[in-house]
């Protein structure tokens, strides 16, 4: 079975407070960077065996929903490549 490289990007929903982003923002500003809207998310990379890219994406999305993201505060995006 071919193996696929899956990349799941998990970000806090926009309305959810992001204390880490906030503190990082504060320090970046102190250092003189003109930045805004700093948010910190997670990126999970893994390889998965599947028949084809489509089913790999299906698995990725199930995993994201199930485990990798917390649906009540986070959203996710999956990207799938042949590895």
């Amino acid at each position: 079975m071919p193996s696929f490289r899956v990349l799941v990007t998990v970000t806090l929903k926009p309305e959810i407070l992001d204390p880490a982003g906030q503190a990082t923002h504060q320090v970046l500003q102190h250092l003189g960077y003109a930045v805004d809207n700093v948010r910190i998310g997670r990126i999970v990379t893994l390889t998965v065996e599947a028949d084809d890219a489509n089913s790999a994406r299906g698995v990725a999305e199930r995993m994201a929903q199930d485990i990798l993201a917390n649906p009540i505060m986070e959203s996710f995006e999956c990207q799938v490549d042949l590895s």
Partner: protein
Amino acid sequence: MRVGVVTFPGSNCDCDTLEAFEFLDVPTKHLWYADTDLTDVDAVVLPGGFSYGDYLRSGALAAKAPMMTAIRDAIQGRDLPVLGICNGFQILTEAGLLPGALRANRHGQFRCAWQTLRVTNESPLFLGLSEGELLRLPIAHAEGSYYAPAGTLADLFMSREVWLQYVDDRGDLNTLTNPNGSLANIAGITRGNVAALMPHPERALEKAFGSEDGRRLLMAWLRGLQERSAHAS
């Protein structure tokens, strides 16, 4: 001899550390992260805690504080002695003032426990702590797993800068008594006049708290300071 203790936003062992030095009858000065004035301190302690909530990476945000720039200058300019405890260790590595990095504990959890340590190399920074001596100190951290690339690690050992290692109660190194997955069980290192450790000596000043080895360690550091300043003058 005056010891400065820095408070970063979110530091939470700063008061314990100040009190520890007061307990040892050492004059202290409370330093604020946003200031840069180090003129009347002879040594600086970066205390434990959660500077900036340990957000991003522990120590990363505090490493950028104006006070850290001043400390870097003073290390380069006048060889300022610095002691980092726990978060202080993380800040020093993030600031590049000590080699290596502190990663998340291997088991992924915060760990608060009593831990036996061995003095691996005698250091002039800690007068009276002799090689092989065992210390019992509390640890309390989530990101205390020391890491350095292979070459750096070899250098640390070669130059006798590996200061403290996690050991079992008999003083033997083994993976079972490594509380966090540190490479080579490293708990503390030194470089030049800078030293740092993950355990908390300021919490072990009196027997009633479980051990007075923290007092021994801090006293050794103070003696080291005195000796070097006597030597210099």
